[in-house]
């Protein structure tokens, strides 16, 4: 009974058409990746694309990396269903970029080589700090990766009409295998091109739909809002539907807002993109392009979300397979029939592929460059072995992502993205800011902050209602939830900053002032910064 109902609703659009358009995307990007991979020789080529991208190209790739399926499908759906509260997410995701622009991007580009750990360990004790930074990098990438793979399965049931576990698992495996191929062959250059193409498609698709929706309402925002309010109730126009219910849910939103705005500048896969441009000035231009593209895209999602709420309605969206996430695809079908739905579906898959590829190359670089070459081989790895280790790591991570992605199908893993942002904000950002701006900062402060931020975020999640004790928990039948919120940020972020401060003040060891001077001079002037490779 349920199966037939699902089959009927999924028969909107034509799965074959969706698959066909997606196959077209894969074919085009594969050709681009193969062409881009010809010059992948050195570590700088493989990890940082030879630092040869321009600011606008890198900015577009950053947008492609950042606008995950969660932000496209998730925010459209959240606005369609919960109205204004969905909009709040996109504002946090956007404003966060100012932290990256003003405080982090250029200085990181000037002092680092391939990874976040390069910068953090610059003037502190190399091995322990590098290992800690690699640990938080791998943790953030792992949480983010699992969330994306889980999303892939949900998309499959929605867009391709495959709702058996076996079918979904096969598609997750195909997505994972494609990703391994892209990253293995194309390295950072190939990954970047996939992200650029995907960002262009995503933004163009959202633009067309936005203009279409606005045209239906005479290009009058007030009429669109009125129509959404007629269908979904007056409450969709003002905040409170999702987070305003209880005192705890309001506090939970403050915690989320904190993690969103401070997390972005600590996301390792975002930071790594700054090394793909030749200079700090290009890194600045990248962020400017990223801010404009991401901001404009979120304005589109506002129109699309309210458009879906007005044209399709909350009840139909929630009843569709994929639930909230189906708002954007259903709107595409409503507007442009199966062809537009096919395009939007293909873009959604491309999104997952591009984001997963970016995460994988970041994690592999961090493992090979920070853990293998610096910590295990103590900086004496044979030339070339580091990149070989990175490629092997790509395959391992890809397999872990596929197995994990199949394992978490059907689980409620939305909290993983929030967790990734919370870890980035509480374990990475304090150490990044302290080491760039606080002369006295030392090794103990860095280690306390990184391990304390990571540990507290993870422990709080384990003892939160997302894991146990509530209707939507992973373990519904047992209750060991001690922490009442679903986002750890409000405690773990201040704790990360505090531990860095206290750790520094309680340690008597002074770091080498000459290296500290070198780091500061290099970070602000760009003297001695890694240059682009010439081929």
């Amino acid at each position: 009974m349920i199966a037939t109902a699902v089959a009927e609703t999924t028969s909107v659009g034509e799965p074959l058409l969706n698959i066909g358009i997606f196959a077209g995307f894969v074919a085009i990007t594969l050709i681009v990746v193969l062409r881009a991979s010809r010059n992948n020789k050195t570590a700088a080529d493989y990890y940082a694309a030879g630092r040869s991208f321009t600011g606008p190209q890198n900015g577009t790739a950053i947008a492609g990396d950042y606008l995950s399926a969660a932000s496209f499908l998730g925010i459209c759906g959240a606005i369609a269903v919960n109205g204004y509260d969905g909009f709040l997410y996109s504002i946090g995701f956007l404003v966060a970029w100012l932290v990256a622009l003003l405080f982090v991007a250029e200085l990181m580009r000037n002092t680092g080589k391939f990874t976040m750990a390069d910068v953090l360990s610059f003037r502190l004790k190399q091995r322990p700090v590098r290992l800690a930074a690699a640990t938080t990098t791998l943790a953030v990438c792992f949480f983010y990766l699992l969330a994306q793979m889980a999303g892939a399965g949900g998309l499959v049931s929605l867009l391709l009409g495959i709702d058996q576990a076996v079918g979904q698992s096969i598609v997750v495996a195909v997505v994972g295998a494609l990703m391994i191929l892209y990253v293995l062959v194309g390295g950072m250059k190939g990954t970047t091109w996939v992200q650029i193409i995907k960002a262009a498609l995503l933004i163009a698709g959202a633009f067309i739909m936005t203009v279409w929706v606005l045209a239906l309402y005479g290009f009058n925002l007030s009429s669109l809002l009125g129509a959404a309010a007629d269908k979904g109730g007056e409450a969709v126009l003002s905040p409170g539907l999702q987070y305003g219910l209880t005192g705890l849910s309001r506090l939970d939103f403050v915690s989320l807002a904190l993690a969103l705005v401070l997390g972005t500048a600590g996301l390792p896969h975002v930071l790594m993109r700054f090394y793909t441009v030749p200079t700090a000035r290009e890194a600045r231009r990248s962020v400017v392009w990223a801010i404009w593209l991401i901001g404009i895209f979120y304005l589109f999602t506002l129109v699309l979300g309210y458009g879906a709420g007005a044209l399709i309605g909350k009840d139909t969206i929630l009843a569709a397979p994929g639930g909230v996430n189906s708002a954007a695809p259903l709107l595409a079908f409503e507007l442009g029939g199966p062809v537009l739905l096919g395009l939007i579906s293909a873009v959604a898959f491309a999104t997952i592929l591009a984001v997963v590829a970016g995460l994988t190359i970041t994690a592999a670089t961090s493992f090979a460059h920070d853990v293998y070459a610096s910590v295990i081989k103590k900086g004496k790895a044979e030339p070339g072995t580091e990149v070989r280790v990175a490629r092997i790591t790509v395959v391992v991570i890809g397999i872990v992502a596929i197995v994990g992605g199949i394992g978490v199908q059907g689980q409620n893993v939305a909290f993983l993205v929030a967790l990734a942002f919370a870890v980035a904000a509480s374990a990475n950002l304090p150490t990044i800011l302290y080491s760039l701006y606080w002369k006295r900062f030392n090794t103990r402060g860095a280690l306390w902050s990184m391990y304390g931020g990571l540990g507290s975020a993870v422990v709080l999640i384990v003892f939160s209602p997302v894991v146990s004790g509530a209707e939507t928990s992973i373990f519904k039948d047992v209750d060991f939830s001690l922490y009442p919120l679903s986002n750890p940020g409000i405690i773990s972020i201040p704790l990360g900053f505090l531990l860095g401060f206290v750790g520094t003040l309680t340690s008597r060891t002074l770091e080498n002032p000459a290296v500290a001077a070198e780091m500061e001079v290099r970070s602000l002037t760009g003297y001695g910064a890694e240059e682009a490779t010439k081929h």
Partner: protein
Amino acid sequence: MSNDAPGSATSDRVTDFERAQSSEPFQRLRKRHRSFVFPLGVAFLVWYFAYVLLADYAHEFMATPVIGNVNVGLLFGLGQFVTTFAITTWYVSFANRRLDPLADEIRSDLTATGHASRSER
């Protein structure tokens, strides 16, 4: 050009960074950079959290209609976009005019003095 040795802390021991750090132009650059980004950073974070707290705790105020169905909440939300774009543009023009020329000057001084003693790079 690109060496595969890990760690970017390939400390070059020849350039006297401590002297460069205490030099007047560098101190000027440092002060200029910090006195721009720190106040602006505090300002946009205060504005963002003021907005978050209003959206979280002042629903009725945010629901006040302004023009047609457009209410205070929506205008404040769109205001966050406007300020983000404005701060971005402002910072870029500041950095291009006031930071880059000074940084370029210090860098070329360092390169000139550095190259005399470090020919291996």
